[in-house]
């Protein structure tokens, strides 16, 4: 391997790593601001201009907070928990294609940690391991609330992983590859309306729901819901160990957003990418033009990621959370059958002269049924007499 490629590759990997961390750090700030804005508040504004230093203050505080290991806890596992959570969270961003490629000395170096042909499976594998951090930590704390949180997290993750996997099978059938980059490129070729979100609306909704569950975000934040379990699995954690847990959650959110954007929203593709990229190569020359086009694509990709991070927060501050059994019901009795149905319908569509939009059938039927039932049934709310 050429040394320059190695260096460029290392830089890209470090950049991905650094950006994950940075985004996760500032997600905490954005979360607080978004929450505040949605609640008619203004949020942190006294630490630095507009409170921009808030995450740094939090980190600084946490580093110097007393590190506490409960006497009855099993010490090594107690330390292992947050470490695992952080590790798996950071590992998963490796296969996300952040951009097309950087052209350098006649080499095309993809803007991606590592390109493997089972990228989707890799992400699934790593994400499914994420729960160990929570389980180990929750168990090691030796606290009933933590344990309940850990158990909830475990069962929730297993349940939703199934639906998560099933929901993207239709996409895999269409693309015929397990590589994330291949899926993105295929969407890029198909153009704006060929984005998977338009061919697979139902799959997208299921995937999004499961992504919420895998990230333990509201409405699926049962493992740490504070009104029931105090702090859930991290009840006993203080200082930076707690920080790692909270951090891992935000990194997971970032990775999920990136994954959703790549799978369903065309990754680094944006409308009229071809034309713009051609215009750039024509005006700036092949190398620079290509690199600039890549940068724009990467920016577009980050735009999508930020939107989804915002969406995660937006939902969190809007909806209530499920109860444990309802969450299981939703996962096993609704999402899994739905995703199987989606696979069948999409597969039939594909077999039937390659129609990609078959999934819409389910969505349209459901909408029509809903509208009909709504107009036929008595008004949902007993409307009180309003003076």
């Amino acid at each position, binding site marked *: 391997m050429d040394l320059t490629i190695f260096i460029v590759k290392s830089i890209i990997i470090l950049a991905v790593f650094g950006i994950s961390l940075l985004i996760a750090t500032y997600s905490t700030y954005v979360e607080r601001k978004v*929450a505040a804005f*949605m*609640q*008619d*508040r203004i949020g942190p504004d006294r630490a630095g201009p507009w409170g921009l230093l808030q995450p740094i203050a939090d980190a600084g505080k946490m580093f110097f907070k007393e590190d506490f290991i*409960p006497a*009855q806890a099993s010490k090594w596992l107690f330390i292992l928990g947050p470490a695992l959570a952080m590790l798996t969270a950071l590992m998963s961003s490796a296969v996300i294609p952040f951009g097309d490629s950087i052209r350098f000395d006649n080499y095309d170096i993809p803007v991606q940690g590592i390109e493997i042909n089972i990228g989707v499976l890799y992400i699934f594998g790593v994400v499914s391991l994420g729960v160990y951090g929570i389980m180990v930590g929750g*168990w090691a*704390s*030796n*606290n*009933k*609330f*933590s*344990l*309940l949180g850990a158990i909830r997290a475990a069962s929730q993750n297993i349940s939703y992983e199934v639906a998560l996997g099933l929901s993207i099978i239709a996409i895999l059938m269409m693309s015929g590859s397990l590589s994330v980059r291949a899926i993105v490129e295929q969407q890029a070729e198909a153009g704006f309306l060929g984005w998977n979100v338009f061919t697979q609306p139902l799959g997208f909704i299921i995937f999004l729901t499961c992504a919420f569950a895998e990230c333990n975000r*509201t*409405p699926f*934040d*049962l493992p740490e*819901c*504070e*009104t*029931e379990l*105090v702090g859930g699995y991290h*009840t*006993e954690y203080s200082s930076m160990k707690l920080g790692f847990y909270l951090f891992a959650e935000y990194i997971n959110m970032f990775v999920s957003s990136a994954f959703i954007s790549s799978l369903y929203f065309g990754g680094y593709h944006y409308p009229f990418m071809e034309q713009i990229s051609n215009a750039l190569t024509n005006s700036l020359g092949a190398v620079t033009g290509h690199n600039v086009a890549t940068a724009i694509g990467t920016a577009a990709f980050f735009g999508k990621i930020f939107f989804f991070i915002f969406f995660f927060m937006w939902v969190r*501050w*809007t*909806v*209530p*959370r*499920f*109860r*444990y*059994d*309802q969450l299981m019901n939703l996962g096993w009795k609704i999402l899994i059958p739905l995703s199987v149905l989606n696979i069948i319908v999409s597969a039939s569509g594909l077999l039937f002269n390659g129609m990609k939009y078959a999934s819409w059938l389910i969505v349209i039927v459901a909408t029509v049924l809903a509208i009909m039932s709504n107009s036929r049934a008595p008004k*949902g*709310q007993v409307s*009180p*007499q*309003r*003076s």
Partner: protein
Amino acid sequence: MTTEELDLANKAGVPARTDEGPVQYVNELTTLNLGPTHPATHGIFQNILQMDGEKIVSGEQTIGYIHRAFEKIAERRPFYQITTLTDRMNYCSSPINNMGWHMTVEKLLGIEVPKRAQYIRVIMMELARIADHLVCNGILGVDTGALTGFVYLFEEREKIYEIYEEMCGARLTTNMGRIGGMERDLSAEAIRKIKKFLAEFPKVLREFESLLNRNRIFMDRIVGVGGISAERALSYGFTGPNLRAAGVDYDVRVMNPYSSYEDFEFDIPVGQSGDTFDRYMVRNEEIWQSLRIIEQAINNLPEGSHFADAPQYYLPPKQEVYKNMEALIYHFKIVMGEIDAPVGEVYHAVEGGNGELGFYLISDGGRAPYRLHFRRPCFIYYQAYPEMCKGATLSDAIVIMSSMNVIAGELDA
């Protein structure tokens, strides 16, 4: 770990640990401590739940964590100072407590309060009821994970506080009424604020309703959870919204009208099966009904004095105190608490935020009550909690708790 430490840890809601590590058996019962510092108990009582997995088998409550001996203090304080105690009983709706107490004393002393004062009282009490229900329903939202609606409601509560401030200068523990009427008349500014509130509040409330009421996640969480039949509810001494949710339309304001409630037109919302959704909906509707009452009261506010003509019980104007010997004597007598109270016993009930709030006052003619007993609705109906959450899950237990609206000050007296 000694038993005492364990006990303390239990009390603190923090991890009880035994030497064998976390006790979690599939087929054996787990004991889980909710409170007193568990976030959902809001720091005031303890529920020891026996759980089978996530299912609650039985529960037992420990209360008294903020027992403040109201009844004992009341025996040492002159009548007018007891207001400061009642304010702190159900602090979410202190004006109701406050005026309930004044009406009790007025009943004992035989003071007839002018219509205007009664209407002002109604306005304040209904505002307090709104404030109370806002907190309860908002907290229910928080406990199911939806914080935002609660914040919207709290902003409206701030507006109610503003009206209080206009009236008396305090937000929560208002100390607003006086024996024989109100401390102050409604100022023009207060009336303006009330009207503004009446105009703006429904919008926010509707927004809150559409955030939660028909949201399936929320409905699934609370429909059919913690139901109680009307018979059991009556046997447990339920009153107020919780009883009405079970389908009994008992409301003190209608059954034994006080303070001119008979003048107003309003409905008594009832539920079907006394579950959490019914309680939520009943409270929600009561807010609308309270708005109706306030609107009627403010539009038909009679002219007249805001206090009764009872110089021996109601403080004379300050300039009178300067000039008039008689007024000065009354002033001193009232402040020293040496008013002529007749011997007798009174029971007076008002519809508090949580139900029938009764004052049982026994006077021996002294400066302080001989005995004052508060019938605190929370204290009485909270005993039903273990029965209501039997068979429910831990999450249910929490929403049942918050929908019952147990106010610590009222619970523990």
